């Protein structure tokens, strides 16, 4: 200012600007610090610390209230008294203490000299050995002297130290006598308050104090903050960064703070415990968090530490709305895999547990399993390639001899609307869907339907029915047979709606030819070699009765439906369209002009069968080598979201799960508002999935991922497990569980039968029966339970199939396959033993229920299994277990247990030993005729 006025600029104005600038700088600096310091996750950690403190405080208060205060006060008084007493003896104690201190000082000195001598000794020893090794004898002799000298010194000092130790010990004991009383009292007090002390320590650990506060301050929090990002690094479950596989870093527990402890089951999110700690996260579960992390199952961005960046996905519309309000939520577009919503998270199980598609069910993943079963049941694999499903059979009926089975009219009506005939059919709807609902498209659909039918009937091969001498049937008897023989294990009829395996029998009379049906129930494989339907070994009369009954089951609504009729112009259009797509417009037209009406129909049919992939499910003449027409689904779960076309569907989020849900609910939905010619339109048929089913199927599809899981983290099947899974697949395909309870599931047919007339539950079957017996039984069933009306059907198993089933049951019960060890030899009892067995057998009146060869004229309803088969059928070790405790094997069995708690009711037989008696009875049962002739 000294030379004021000579400056170009006004200084005070500059000062003012500078001042304002400096203040702004300060403010923005503080803002910067605040912006850096204030993090979403910190607020969660603060809140969690508060909750922890609260919980610890609660526990502490509870523990404190439990302490016996009266006793504590008394102890405190006693301690005071003891201290007083101690003071009175002060002088004496003082001398002892002084002496003890002096002794300890001496010992310290002696010990020090000992240590010095020892190190001198070590040096001398080294020098001696070194000199000796290099043949420097003079030096060695000199060193040897030192060694000897130091050795003596060491010995001396050691002795001194030990001497002092003894003296110190006795002095301490002397001192102890004075203080003993006080110390025991103090110990008692500590014992009384031990729990409280521990909890106090816990509390101090979690309670935010001044030091914590300081450590978490901005700029100081680089030292050792209590609030910090928590993470696990999983080296072998890598994340795919396209150019590199990098170890997975999951930081979810930065906010999900209570995830690994069951203390927080009822806490609000994000602090809640994992709902399945027995399976996940906890260190003693099968998927501990430090080995698996979080995102390998949940997806999302594991490294992110804000709600939005982590790519959370809501599980429902309500949650979505809540999140939008609370977090301004939307799908994260910069994360490749947004988190799976909680209802679909089971999809992730499949990437490790699929065992290349060999696994039938994944444990504890009900949604995924349901989806997988739907995938198989609705034959998705017929059009879409998926690993593990390469060799699955065609599930739809063989159409190569259709003409002998049903009428053209029925076929056309069925194609137009399968669900009108059979509401629960697995055949999907192909025509008149959302993208083919215009009048023109409906006409074209009729043309295709007619074409397909014409093709099928023209190519239909002759079928020689087994109905040359078909007797007159009795419908009433037929109904009884259908109800009792076991048909209802697979087929629903009337009110019985449980089975979903075979087609419903309702309305069958509107569909098939009676003679064809007669031939079919007699032996289904005669018409269709690969059918899963077994033969019930019906007599001619039985088959005729059944046929008579089934033919009375009509579907009136369907019968009254007018037969679809295509107009000529629609047929021409369709033919021309197919011809153009196949040959081009010019040649197409030339061919079209040469075609007769009949040829057009058959041509349209052939092309339509090809177009819609009918041959994926049905055997059709001329389509033996047809491939899969759908998109390959391997890896669909990890396919980039941009490869899913949403078209003009704007009311769903652009996520894979929403796309799948929409597609499965209405396969043609993404054609909405698009101009396409008929053959370009999406052609996936409508399966009528419910929302729940679509969700389950989505779960399975999202599980089909391309992921790099190392072998040791995958669920690899050993030979035994593989046999089990193979068997489970057969059990599912053949619907064994329709009649039998297997692995605790199924046996629904029991509901249709009188009590006790149900097929036996197969409990520990592998442990119970011999493999070779089971093998022959499966191939050619024989009667074990005379009282049953329901029959084990003949499936026509090949040796390989029967063996696979036998191995399944044996593997399931951890039996050795094809091996009879010494312990499995059928025991040959001595004559005395055998007779004892016979005596027991007769005493217990086993034959009152059981049968041994001849039923006589007894009421089959009261009978128990055939015992003449026991020798070949039952495993001896099982018989023992069974006799000891039948109820344990078959809860509710009529077989009584005669030796409860191994106490014998027969004191006179075999010295009253229950064990001996059981063995003797087994010996008899398994060798009924052994000494009979003697």
């Amino acid at each position, binding site marked *: 200012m000294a030379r004021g006025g*000579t*400056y*170009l*600029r006004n*200084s005070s104005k*500059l000062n003012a*600007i*500078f001042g304002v*600038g*400096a203040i*702004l*700088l300060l403010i*923005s*600096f503080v*803002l*910067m610090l605040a*912006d850096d310091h204030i993090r979403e996750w910190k607020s969660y950690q603060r809140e969690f610390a508060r909750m922890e403190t609260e919980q610890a405080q609660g526990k502490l208060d509870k523990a404190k209230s439990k302490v016996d205060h009266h006793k504590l006060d008394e102890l405190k008084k006693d301690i005071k008294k003891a201290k007083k007493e101690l003071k009175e003896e002060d002088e004496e104690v003082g001398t002892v203490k002084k002496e003890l201190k002096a002794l300890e000082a001496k010992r310290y000195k002696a010990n020090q000299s000992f240590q010095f001598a020892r190190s001198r000794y070590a040096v001398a020893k080294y020098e001696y050995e070194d000199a000796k090794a290099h043949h420097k004898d003079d030096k060695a002799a000199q060193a040897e002297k030192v060694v000897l000298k130091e050795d003596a010194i060491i010995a001396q000092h050691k002795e001194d130290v030990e001497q002092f130790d003894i003296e110190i010990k006795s002095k301490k004991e002397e001192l102890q006598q004075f203080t003993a009383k006080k110390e025991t009292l103090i110990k008692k007090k500590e014992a009384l308050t031990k729990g409280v002390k521990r909890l106090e320590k816990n509390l101090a650990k979690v309670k935010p104090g001044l030091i914590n506060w300081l450590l978490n301050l901005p700029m100081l929090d680089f030292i050792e903050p209590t609030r910090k990002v928590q993470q696990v690094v999983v080296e072998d479950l890598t994340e795919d*960064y*396209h*150019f590199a596989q990098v170890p997975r870093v999951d930081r979810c527990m930065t906010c999900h703070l209570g995830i690994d402890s069951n203390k927080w089951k009822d806490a609000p999110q994000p602090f809640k415990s994992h709902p399945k700690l027995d399976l996940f996260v906890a260190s003693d579960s099968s998927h501990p968090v430090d080995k698996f992390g979080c995102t390998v199952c949940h997806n999302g961005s594991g490294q992110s530490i804000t709600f939005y960046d982590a790519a959370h996905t809501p599980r429902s519309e309500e949650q979505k709305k809540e999140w939008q309000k609370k977090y301004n939520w939307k799908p994260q577009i*910069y*994360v*490749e895999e947004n988190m799976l919503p909680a209802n679909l998270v089971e999809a992730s199980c499949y990437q490790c547990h699929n065992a290349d598609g060999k696994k039938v069910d994944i444990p504890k993943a009900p949604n995924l399993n349901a989806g997988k079963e739907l995938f198989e049941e609705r034959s998705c694999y017929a059009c879409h390639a998926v690993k593990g499903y390469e060799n699955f059979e065609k599930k739809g009926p063989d159409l190569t001899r259709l003409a002998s089975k049903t009428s053209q009219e029925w076929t056309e009506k069925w194609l137009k609307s399968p669900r009108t005939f059979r509401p629960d059919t697995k055949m999907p709807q192909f025509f008149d869907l959302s993208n083919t609902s215009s009048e023109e498209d409906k006409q074209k659909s009729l043309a295709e339907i007619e074409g397909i039918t014409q093709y099928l009937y023209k190519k239909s091969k002759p079928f020689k029915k087994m109905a040359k001498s078909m007797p007159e049937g009795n419908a009433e008897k037929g109904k009884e047979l259908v109800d009792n023989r076991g048909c209802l294990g697979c087929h629903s009829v009337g009110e019985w709606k449980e089975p979903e395996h075979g087609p419903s029998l309702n309305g069958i009379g509107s569909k098939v030819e009676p003679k064809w049906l007669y031939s079919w129930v007699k032996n289904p494989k005669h018409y269709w070699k690969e059918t899963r339907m077994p033969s019930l070994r019906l007599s001619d009369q039985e088959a005729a009765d059944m046929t008579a009954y089934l033919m009375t089951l009509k579907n009136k609504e369907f019968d009254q439906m007018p037969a679809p009729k295509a107009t000529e112009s629609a047929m021409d259009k369709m033919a021309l369209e197919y011809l153009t797509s196949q040959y081009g417009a010019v040649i197409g037209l030339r061919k079209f002009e040469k075609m007769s009406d009949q040829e057009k129909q058959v041509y349209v049919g052939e092309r339509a069968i090809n177009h819609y992939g009918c041959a994926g499910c049905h055997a059709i003449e001329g389509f033996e080598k047809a491939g899969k027409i759908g998109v390959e689904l391997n890896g669909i779960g990890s396919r*980039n979201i*941009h490869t899913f076309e949403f078209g003009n569907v704007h009311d769903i989020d652009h996520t894979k799960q929403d796309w799948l849900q929409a597609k499965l609910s209405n396969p043609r939905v993404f054609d909405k508002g698009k101009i396409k010619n008929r053959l370009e339109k999406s052609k996936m048929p409508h399966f009528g999935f419910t929302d729940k089913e679509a969700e389950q199927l989505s779960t399975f599809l999202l599980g089909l991922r391309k992921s790099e899981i190392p072998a040791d983290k995958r669920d690899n099947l050993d030979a035994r497990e593989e046999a089990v899974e193979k068997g489970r697949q057969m059990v599912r395909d053949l619907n064994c569980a329709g009649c039998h309870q297997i692995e605790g599931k199924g046996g629904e047919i029991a509901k249709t039968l009188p009590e006790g007339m149900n097929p036996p539950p197969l409990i520990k079957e592998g442990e119970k029966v011999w493999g070779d017996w089971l093998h022959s039984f499966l191939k050619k069933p024989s009667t074990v339970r005379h009282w049953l009306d329901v029959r084990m059907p003949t499936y026509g198993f090949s040796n390989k199939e029967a063996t696979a089933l036998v191995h399944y049951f044996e593997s399931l019960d951890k039996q050795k396959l094809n091996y009879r060890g010494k312990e499995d030899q059928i025991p040959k009892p001595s004559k005395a033993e055998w007779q004892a067995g016979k005596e027991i057998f007769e005493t217990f009146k086993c034959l009152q229920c059981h049968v041994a060869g001849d039923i006589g004229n007894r009421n089959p309803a009261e009978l128990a299994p055939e015992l003449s088969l026991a020798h070949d059928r039952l495993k001896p070790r099982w018989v023992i277990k069974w006799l000891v405790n039948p109820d344990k094997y078959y809860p509710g069995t009529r077989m009584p247990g005669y030796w409860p708690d191994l106490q014998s009711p027969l004191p006179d037989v075999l010295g009253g030993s229950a064990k001996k008696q059981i063995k003797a009875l087994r010996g008899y049962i398994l060798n009924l005729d052994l000494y009979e002739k003697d």
Partner: protein
Amino acid sequence: MSVEGFKHLIDSFFSSPSTVFIGSVVGFGLFFAFVRFFTRPLVAGILTAITVGFLAFAVTDKNFFIIVTKPDNVPIVGMLFLLGFFTWLAFRKAVINDLRTEKGEPIIERSEKEEKVFSWPDLVYPEMICMIGLTVLLLVWSILLKAPLEEPANPAAAPNPSKAPWYFLGLQEMLVYFDPWIAGVVLPGLIIFGLMAIPYIDNNPKGNGYYTFKERKFAIITFSFGFIILWIVLIIFGTFLRGPNWNFFGPFEYWDPYKVESLVNVNLSEFVYIKWLGTGLPKFWLTREFLGIILVLAYFAITPLLLAKTVLKKMYLSLGLFRFNIMVFLLLTMMTMPIKMVLRWAFNLKYIIAIPEYFFNI
């Protein structure tokens, strides 16, 4: 007119690169034709007010808002205003100087030259204040806008649109009209080479150390064309108007990745042999591309000659043969871009010379 109608009008006006580009060129021409009018503070103020007003109106639109407020694009918006301001400032000073010279007064710089000020506080103090101000700006900016980080790069799923850094968007735009080897190698190389060559070509001593337009018209217009039209306008194209699949979108239009544009382009040889002669393309490339080759050669060989004889006669005399040829070559190369653009829009012309056999297309 309703707001939507106005937006639709703007969108349809902006709906093709040709309109925007030609509009810019016309504006550019008008500016230089009436430079004294446009540099008046009032006029500049009104133009600024219109621009700001438009921007204020436009950000109320959802689609425009998304584009403009992208953390990547915010600095570009700022840059446009800065560019406008500094261009105006330079021309304002130049116009004033020109006026003074006309009146026989000394230019401003001369009078300023005689004044002397103290480095403290007149220089250093304001510098420090600027420093503080800029620091505040950067801090607040970094707090308000997060770094635009995206997902890990995935070669199987390129982002749509895939855009170069904003300063290279002009180059990326050239890829629409030229093969990569020209747009990505030859032209950028020539830009650098050309900029380096300017001091050696330019022998006009005027305008040294002071602002003037009148005394360096050719140099200033040429440079401004290259910088403003061929660089800045193309950056605006690339940033605000090029959307998914590099399709052209109006500023209020939704960037629909499924928008379809018809792109049917034809080579010059196809014009000649199919459209005009109707004989079908000859197999041998030299016969086929005969006309194109001649045209390109003529463009680079005959135009300088014509220019030297006609409009640039004076310059030819002053520069001499060698410098003149280099200057004209650079100028012609620069003009290939607008020429090619116009040909594309007018005739759907793809290549003038198309020899895919040797990966040589112009």
